[in-house]
Structure formats: C-alpha cells, structure tokens
C-alpha cells in the first residue's frame, strides 16, 4: 500500500485492544495479531456524492436527461456518431459509456462483447445502535467490512454471491456467510437485528481491475469493470476518464486500464485468481 502511495500504518494487537476493545482478539480460528490503519480512510455519504457531482456538472453547462434510456448507437462509416434513446436521437462527437452493472447490455448495442460478468453484491444494515464503531473495520480472511452510519445502523457486507445476476438481490447462503464473518471479528453485534438488505449489480472483470479506454470503434469510449470498488474510485475514475475524452490519451495513472490487456498479456490481476470473475 505504501509503495502505491496509500498511507497505511502497522498497528499491533495491543494498540487495537485499547481503541477497539470489542473485537474478538482471542478468536480460536481468527486470532487478531495486528492490523493496517489508514487514517485518511472512511466513509462518504453516497447520495450526497452523487448529488454533488450532478449539481457541479449542471452548473458547468452539462445537460442531465432523466428517464432517458439509451436504446442503440448511431454508426456511420464505422464511427459512432450518436445514440438512440427512448426520447429521441442525440448526436455527439464523442460518446462515453459509463454504466457499471449494465456495461455488457449497453456495449452489446454497439456489437461489443466485454471481459465482464455482472454479479450481485449484497449489503446489510442493522437496527440503529448507540455509537459503537469508529471508522471502518475490515477483516480480510472473512472478506467482511463494517461501519456505522449517522443513523446508528451498522452497515456491513462481504462476498459476492458468485453467479451472474441482474436481479439486484441475492440469496441466503451469503447472508449467513457475512453474518458469520461479522461474528468472528466482533461478536458484540450478535444481538443486533438485521433491518434491511439489498443487492447491487457489479461489473466483475476478468482480472478484477477496471477499464478506462477507447473502444475499437472511433468516437466510442468505455469506463467500467470496477467490480465492487467503484464508488470509492469515483473521483479518480471520473478525472481520468475526462482526461481521456478531452485528449484522446490515457491519464498517466490509468495507462494500464486497457480493454485489450488480455490479448497483450498485461493483466492487472492483483489477487492472481485468473480469468474467473467470481473469484476477484
């Protein structure tokens, strides 16, 4: 993490015991020996982020058309020159796709197949509790994360279900797995009631890493494949995509995020899992 420029401090178990006494340090299966602490990290209110960007874009002259579904792409001499929508055609010099979850559905309108499978990721919220949890706590072996919202509910989740899905809901085995992960690290949540659960649609890519690239069709660009790490990458992803759209060159930090990297052998497979989207 430090080599990649992300601040991280090693913290030993003794320090954690002072600050997070409710963790199950002496768990027989997953004893806690220490941790990595990123002070700058935390949560952001996602609705506020979306509205903030929308207001910012709107104030800079961007037209945001709601209830307007893209139904096709207009092509001329092998070049993309616009989109067909449920509210009529829109011509453009450059057309930029950024529809994670539905990347394959939209790209297929341009005759493209992508190195992406859409998978469901479930998330959960408990009933409101008095402040108990500072920051965000994650537990690698259980692939579990938890934080506490302003309303007091614990927001937590874990693995994807593991099969292609656009249903925006998952199944019970994962609910059990996630709760087991939570109990393994902080059994204190055991008596809290589950208030709400839902599922989203993830662009799971073949190597677990995203794409910010031109397509093979002139005038058509693609940003997707962020798996379950898209929201936190929004500012950087948007910035790099804007750079690509404006200059037709990738931003220096995003040069690897190519659609053709599986052909050239330049995979960004951080986990070394291979071309199996449900393992990333």
């Amino acid at each position, binding site marked *: 993490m430090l080599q990649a420029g992300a601040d991280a401090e090693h913290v030993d178990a003794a320090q954690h015991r002072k600050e997070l006494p409710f963790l199950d340090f002496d768990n027989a299966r997953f004893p806690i020996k220490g941790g990595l602490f990123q002070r700058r990290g935390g949560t952001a209110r996602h609705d506020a982020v979306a509205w903030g960007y929308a207001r910012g874009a709107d104030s800079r002259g961007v037209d945001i058309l709601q209830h307007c579904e893209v139904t096709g792409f207009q092509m001329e001499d092998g070049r993309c020159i616009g989109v067909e929508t449920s509210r009529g055609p829109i011509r453009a010099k450059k057309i930029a796709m950024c529809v994670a979850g539905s990347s394959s559905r939209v790209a297929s309108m341009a005759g493209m197949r992508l190195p992406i499978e859409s998978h469901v990721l479930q998330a959960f919220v408990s009933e409101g509790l008095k402040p108990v949890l500072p920051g965000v706590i994650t537990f690698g072996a259980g692939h579990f994360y938890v934080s506490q919202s302003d309303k007091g509910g614990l927001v937590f989740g874990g693995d994807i279900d593991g*099969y292609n899905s656009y249903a925006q809901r998952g199944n019970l085995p994962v609910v059990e797995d996630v709760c087991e992960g939570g109990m393994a690290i902080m059994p204190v949540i055991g008596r809290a009631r589950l208030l709400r659960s839902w599922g989203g649609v993830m662009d799971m890519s073949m190597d677990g890493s995203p794409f910010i690239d031109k397509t093979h069709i002139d005038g058509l660009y693609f940003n997707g494949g962020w798996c379950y790490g898209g929201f936190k990458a929004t500012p950087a992803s948007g910035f790099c995509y804007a750079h690509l759209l404006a200059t037709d060159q990738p931003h220096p930090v995003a040069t690897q995020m190519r659609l053709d990297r599986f052909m050239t052998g330049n995979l960004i497979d951080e986990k070394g899992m291979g071309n199996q989207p449900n393992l990333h």
Partner: protein
Amino acid sequence: MLIDHPLLGPRDAAEFIYLGDLSLIDRPDWQAEDAMQQFHDYGYLRDNPAGSHQELWYHEQGDRSWLVVTRDTLTHEISKVELARDVARERGRDK
C-alpha cells in the same frame, strides 16, 4: 436458489461452484489459424445477458458432476437443468 439436479433432485445452490457461461464447454482448436484470437475470446469475453443464461455449475459438495443450468439472470428462475455430459455429447463431443 434451488438447482433441480437430474439425478439427485433439488439441491441448494450453495452445494455447487459456479464456473460461468456454457460457452466455456467449447474449447477452441489450438491448431486453428486464428487460435490466439479464439482462445482470447473464449477465455475473456462474455455475452453476460440480462435474461435467459445457460451456465456451468459443478456439484462440489454432492456427486461432483457438472450441470448445465438454464437460468434467468433477472429473476434467478431456473427453467432447465441437464447433465453437462449430455449437453457435450449433443454438441458432438465424445464426453
């Protein structure tokens, strides 16, 4: 999500490991002229439809057979379950 195994009856999907699109059953010919492109498309590109999807599931915690499941990715409704062996043979393979 229950998968109605042709031999064993309905089993929870958690007994299985999911591989992916049925197209993975058709491994390209490594000696073809365009083998490189074919293997790339076979290994890395997917249709990923929102709707009816044929896919391969491995019954790891059961009889360790491979199944071809026809499932709607919008509703998770499973309309057909076959032994992969039977599907492969229908496609002209010997196993």
